[in-house]
């Protein structure tokens, strides 16, 4: 309007009609010029960038010439920046060998045990192929190992596992084979359980510090988030209800739906054994919030302290709780030192979870020859009792040696009673009491001391300076070597 009113004055003057039509035309012309100048030049149709070809219309973000993997797979492709994996890779480049490579990097970052291989080897050679090949009639029958069998495991195998688990947990709880699903290892067990209990975008509360592998196991494909519940050295890193409450409420404020609590017991990386009271509190909390409880008990037999291991299954049996929210993960990788066999367990009190997990076993079932060996092995009660006694004693001895060695250097460890590692407080060696200081120490340990220990940062520990050191793949003579190397940094 403002433009038109002054124009009236011009139009009403001499030559008004001519000027009155000329000026708007000129203005319009200049406007068009201006807009054209802002527009990008039209491209030659023969050079249309591929992103505008129809096949890519729906493939958002596809760049010229590159083939995309799915956006959910992309983060998986990135090399991990977690010190947990970095350390493992570095050892591969220069692995210590007490004969051929005495200057190599000593592996303290992998929770594996070689302490009882002699017993296992002896059992294997004495029990030969009977366990793999023979049918009940005593004939060799290839179909016993080669053909399809139920993906979730023969009843026989589940019975053997149930009995074994009960035995290693002190015989105080019995496991029902019909609540059990056998998986190809602990890794798929936790993933399948996550798929059953939570939708994409939901979350699990998880006390810190926690096993770095959960980041992969839970997050790679399920889309479930992990919400840390921070624990402190003052509580010996034991989770408290107040911490759980706080984390739960914060999650709710952010709009995250919490589906469950996931924790390991004996815990990894700290190695502490949760008391009956703590387990009770966790279950009570879960009941109040109507969420699941997943107890990863993969180190149940790797106990060496005086504290008694109590399974969540035992606590769940107490009447006041709705058992159907309790689920347990187990595997033979740690206690029986046979991670290569790939055998794990999902144990759930919830019938629908068991049914769903069974159906998912087609993606990850135990190879049949392995099943047959395990049926024999786990059913051999005499051997299992012998193994348990030796295993616990040997871990205890090694633990004492290792912790004593560190004590001599003035380096304390958290109180622990289980697991294949100890949780070491190296804060006295930090140049600065911070995550940065811790990562610098991690690097020094790798490059100067040539030791791979997992820093607390990798385990989401809130206090800097803590390192997980696995000692069950060490020979006694390796321990002084390690202590000497650490002494260099003191």
């Amino acid at each position, binding site marked *: 309007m403002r433009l038109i009113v002054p124009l009236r004055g011009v139009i009403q003057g001499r030559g008004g009609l001519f000027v009155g039509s000329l000026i708007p035309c000129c203005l319009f012309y200049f406007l068009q010029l201006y807009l054209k100048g802002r527009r990008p030049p039209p491209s030659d149709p023969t050079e249309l960038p591929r992103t505008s070809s129809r096949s890519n219309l729906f493939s958002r973000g596809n760049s010229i010439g590159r*083939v995309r993997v799915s956006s959910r797979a992309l983060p998986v492709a990135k090399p991990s920046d977690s010190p947990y994996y970095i350390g493992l890779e570095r050892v591969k480049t220069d692995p210590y060998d007490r004969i051929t490579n005495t200057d190599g990097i000593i592996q303290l970052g992998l929770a594996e045990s070689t302490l009882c291989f002699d017993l296992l080897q002896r059992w294997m050679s004495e029990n030969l192929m009977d366990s793999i090949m023979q049918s009940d009639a005593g004939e060799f029958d290839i179909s016993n190992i080669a053909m399809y069998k139920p993906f979730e495991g023969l009843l026989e195998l589940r019975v053997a596992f149930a009995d074994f688990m009960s035995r290693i947990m002190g015989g105080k709880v019995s496991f029902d084979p019909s609540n059990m699903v056998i998986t190809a290892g602990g*890794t798929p067990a936790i993933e399948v359980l996550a798929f059953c209990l939570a939708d994409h975008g939901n979350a699990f509360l998880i006390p810190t510090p926690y096993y770095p592998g959960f980041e992969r196991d839970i997050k790679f494909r399920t889309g479930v988030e992990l919400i840390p519940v921070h624990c402190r050295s003052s509580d010996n890193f034991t989770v408290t209800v107040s911490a759980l409450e706080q984390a739960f409420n914060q999650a709710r404020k952010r709009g995250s739906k919490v589906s469950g609590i996931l924790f390991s017991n004996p815990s990894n990386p700290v190695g502490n054994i949760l008391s009956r009271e703590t387990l009770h509190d966790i279950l009570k909390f879960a009941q109040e919030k109507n969420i699941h409880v997943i107890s990863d008990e993969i180190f149940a037999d790797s106990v060496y302290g005086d504290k008694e291991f109590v399974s969540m299954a035992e606590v769940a049996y107490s009447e006041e709780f709705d058992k159907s929210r309790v689920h347990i993960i187990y595997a033979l990788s740690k206690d029986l030192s046979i991670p*290569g066999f790939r055998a794990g367990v999902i144990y759930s009190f919830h019938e629908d979870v068991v049914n*769903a997990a069974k159906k*998912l076993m087609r993606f990850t079932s135990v190879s049949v020859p392995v099943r047959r060996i395990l049926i024999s092995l786990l059913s051999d009660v005499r051997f299992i009792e012998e193994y348990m006694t030796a295993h616990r004693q040997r871990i205890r001895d090694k633990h004492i040696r290792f912790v004593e060695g560190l004590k001599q250097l003035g380096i304390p460890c958290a109180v622990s009673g289980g697991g294949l590692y100890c949780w070491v407080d190296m804060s006295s060696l930090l140049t600065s009491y911070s995550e940065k200081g811790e990562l610098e120490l991690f690097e020094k340990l790798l490059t100067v001391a040539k030791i791979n220990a997992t820093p607390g940062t990798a385990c989401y520990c809130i206090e800097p300076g803590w390192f997980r050191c696995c000692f069950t793949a060490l020979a006694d003579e390796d321990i002084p070597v390690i202590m000497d190397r650490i002494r260099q940094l003191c």
Partner: protein
Amino acid sequence: MVSLATEKKQDLNLLSRIASGDGHGENSSYFEGWKAYEENPFHPIDRPDGVIQMGLAENQLCGDLMRKWVIEHPEASICTEQGVNQFSDIAIFQDYHGLPEFRQAVAKFMEKTRNNRVKFDPDRIVMSGGATGAHETVAFCLANPGDGFLVPTPYYPGFDRDLRWRTGVNLVPVTCHSSDGFKITVEALEDAYEKALLSNIPVKGLLMTNPSNPLGTTLDRECLKSLVNFTNEKRIHLIADEIYAATTFGQSEFISVAEVIEEIEDCNRDLIHIVYSLSKDMGLPGFRVGIIYSYNDRVVQIARKMSSFGLVSSQTQRLIAKMLSDEDFVDEFIRESKLRLAARHKELTTGLDGLGIGWLKAEAGLFLWMDLRNLLKTATFDSETELWRVIVHQVKLNVSPGGSFHCHEPGWFRVCFANMDHKTMETALERIRVFTSQLEEETKPVAAAPMMAKKKKKCWQSNLRLSFSDKRRFDDGFFSPHSPVPPSPLVRAQT
């Protein structure tokens, strides 16, 4: 104390959609066939009127050769006296790269089954929990929830579950017609592609099975080239399921996509992926050896990390490495397997020819695509289901109806023949003969009908007597990977 009613209400909210939904596919009516088999499985002596399993594509024809090799090579297993010295190294091994000797042996075996016309790089071999796990992992790698894969019909029903359940990916059928032998045409591909776009499904790949399940046909070079060209042009992935590669017999020759891409200039190899397994070619489904072979470095990297969810057990890797490195054994095994498949195929087709029953000409796979269109009352899938029910419950053969494979046309049935011995095949053929002659009778005057009805009744009423055996088929363990039916407690009583 939480009240029962509240508990139930709470219960409903506690499971994920994946767990509480139908993605597992086991509520399909087609499981009726499995159930019928499980409730009354055939045994030549103990249960001669039982249902014969012709719905499971298993290769059991060369079990004797496998047995012989395993007995003669105890050092291949770490659980024998001869092999136990390797125990500690192998039992502790859980690196997702897999044992190098395993990957090398599998690569060599894959070359052999393609007549050494193409080379495979062991570093591109990624393990998975059977071909089932392989397909799912590939879907996770290449597609987001809501994306789609084109799949030519008819296709293996397991894809509906394996590719969709946890991944959220859609399958878009590419219709192939019996009129041209179910060939995959570019027109059909384009058509399906357009339909997907119109339904707002971003197409990320084309999945094809070659040799085909359920057809048993192999793709010729021209067709393969056209598929590669199509996917290249659309810049979508090509996933070639080649798990039946070594099951070709007779004149037909298997050509792998790996060969064809060598012949195409400007082929974008980042789009090419092969799914393989030892379950069919070697008859070792229980070993759970699935393989992803991708020409895309990034996919190899990602799939390898995901293989932790379904690693092949290290002792299985070692056994397979030793077995597949024994070239004489492998050559003999493949040769014999083809001969026996050919013989069994001939037995079945000769029998069907004699009865005037048609079948699709094919020389691969562990099954036959049988044509019963002329036995349908009407050319509808309802009619096909009706006929199928009669075959399952009356003729007592668990065959798989074409509808379950998303066949465009009713009346086709997949019949597996490599999971049984010769006598069982004879029995199956005899039953088909009886059935077809009964059908002929039915078209005769009504006077014959009461006798027919009586015969039928008798058929249904037989087999109330339960018999138990300690043969492997009857321990609670033996049932198919597809069956949702839990074992009957009665069957366990014997053991």
